[in-house]
């Protein structure tokens, strides 16, 4: 028996002719250049390895972002050590969900950006901050979508505005952008945003929220996401960027916490769930 998956269940070539491999369309099989040229250019049509939600919230003196460390291959838990929060410049964090290879491409683009920034700012003082990173990424993603070759991601940028107020904005693979005091990508926009908005009903209300309050709700969100999002894990990273109370104009702390665990898990609710698996009633 021929064990090539393409041959499974196939009648013999002598009778029916050769199998047309283009039907499966996994990739270009031929290696000679002529056939590669004849084959149409292929762009990303779907993400392969994916990261799930990024969630984020503003508070009085800064922002918190969180994302778990899982890279899924469909329903397979393929990687459990993917870092999806990226520090850019001194005081900005970028949280990325969606395709992991595109995430790594964006990571390289941002790296290059930082290098160029240093070359032309040898005297210092011109800092790459969150609004600048956000604008730049929105151009990158919009231009890629306009070439019909998107970077398959949804991104949240957190940091400070030029006037040192907290900054939080979103970009996705279409180039759509928006800002709010509570933001989440993917499943998080359904499961986490309602919880976050309970803390901050109006966008301006973040000024009444302390870091502790914000952090507690973010941890709650990560737990709820782990319960209900089948592509989420209970291992996550969390970044807190906070300006100091004494010198808000110049001083801030950037706290990157890795390998956090979703705490206080309780699966008692699971036994009451009906309608899934073997318990149909």
């Amino acid at each position, binding site marked *: 028996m021929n064990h090539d998956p393409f041959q499974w269940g196939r009648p013999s070539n002598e009778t*029916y*002719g050769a199998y047309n491999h283009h039907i499966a369309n996994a990739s270009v099989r031929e290696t000679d250049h002529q056939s590669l040229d004849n084959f149409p250019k292929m762009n990303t*049509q779907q993400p392969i390895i994916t990261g799930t939600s990024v969630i984020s919230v503003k508070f009085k003196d800064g922002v918190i972002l969180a994302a778990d460390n899982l890279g899924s291959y469909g329903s397979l838990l393929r990687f459990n050590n993917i870092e999806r929060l990226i520090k850019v410049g001194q005081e900005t964090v970028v949280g990325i969900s969606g395709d992991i290879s595109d995430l790594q491409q964006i990571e390289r683009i941002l790296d290059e950006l930082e290098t160029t920034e240093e070359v032309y700012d040898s005297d210092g003082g011109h800092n790459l901050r969150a609004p600048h990173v956000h604008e730049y990424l929105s151009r990158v993603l919009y231009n890629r979508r306009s070439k019909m070759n*998107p970077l398959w991601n949804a991104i949240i940028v957190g940091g400070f505005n030029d006037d040192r107020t907290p900054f939080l904005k979103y970009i996705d693979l279409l180039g759509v*952008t928006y800002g709010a005091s509570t933001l989440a990508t993917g499943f998080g926009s359904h499961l986490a945003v309602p919880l976050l908005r309970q803390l901050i009903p*109006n966008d301006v209300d973040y000024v009444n929220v302390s870091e502790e309050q914000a952090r507690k709700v973010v941890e709650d969100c990560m737990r709820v996401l782990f319960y209900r999002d089948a592509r989420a894990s209970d291992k996550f990273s969390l970044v807190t960027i906070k300006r100091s109370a004494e010198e808000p104009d110049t001083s801030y702390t950037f706290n990157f916490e890795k390998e956090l665990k979703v705490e206080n898990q309780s699966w008692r609710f699971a036994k009451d769930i009906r309608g899934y698996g073997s318990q149909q009633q």
Partner: protein
Amino acid sequence: MNATVASEYSSEIHSVPIEHRFNPYSDNGGTVLGIAGEDFAVLAGDTRQVEGYSIQSRYQPKVFNVGDDIVMTANGFAADGAALIDRFKNQLQWYKFDHGGKKLNIKSAARYIQHLLYGKRFFPYYVSTLIAGLDEEGKGAVYSYDPVGSYEREQCRAGGAAASLIMPFLDNQVNFKNQYEPGSDGKKKRELRYLTLDEVLELVRDAFSSATERHIQVGDGLEILIVTKEGVRTEYFDLKRD
């Protein structure tokens, strides 16, 4: 080779990939509205941005003062709208460099936007565009566009998600369509007149609070940009958030 039996597989045409296209557009909801008065013009939009049934943001302004006392909005697919407005602002700055800081009049702005839109005729900006300002005589002007640049000057125009709800209301209240003089037995049409700014603001607020009731993509806040000979000013009103 000997004769082969025809099968579905072997009759597949070679080298034609299965098409599965990425959709470069989405609909971010929201609605906008422009009304021209005798010596003013307003351009209003709600501040909600949606994707499907999710509210992405409750305050994401989409009406902008683009300079030279011209206000502009491009409602529909948010990324295209933002890109169009950014390109226009940029071109306006070049116009100023090239013409020694001369003010761009709204007629020229209107024609230029047509070219921006038609330039992407075969990959259009998925937006309904409105601009408002004052013309050379100081009269209020509103220009409206379809996604590929067809445009006209009008007294009023609604665009976006709730356009079909608001536009008939405007026909009746701004252009007095289907209004007749009392006692004329439907023979004599009510005479047209310019509305005052206060009347227009009342109309705009009614239009948006009604649209908020009936359209799920409209709500949260209403931002009105008002152009008079004194310049551009902004007013904000809350809308229902449900």
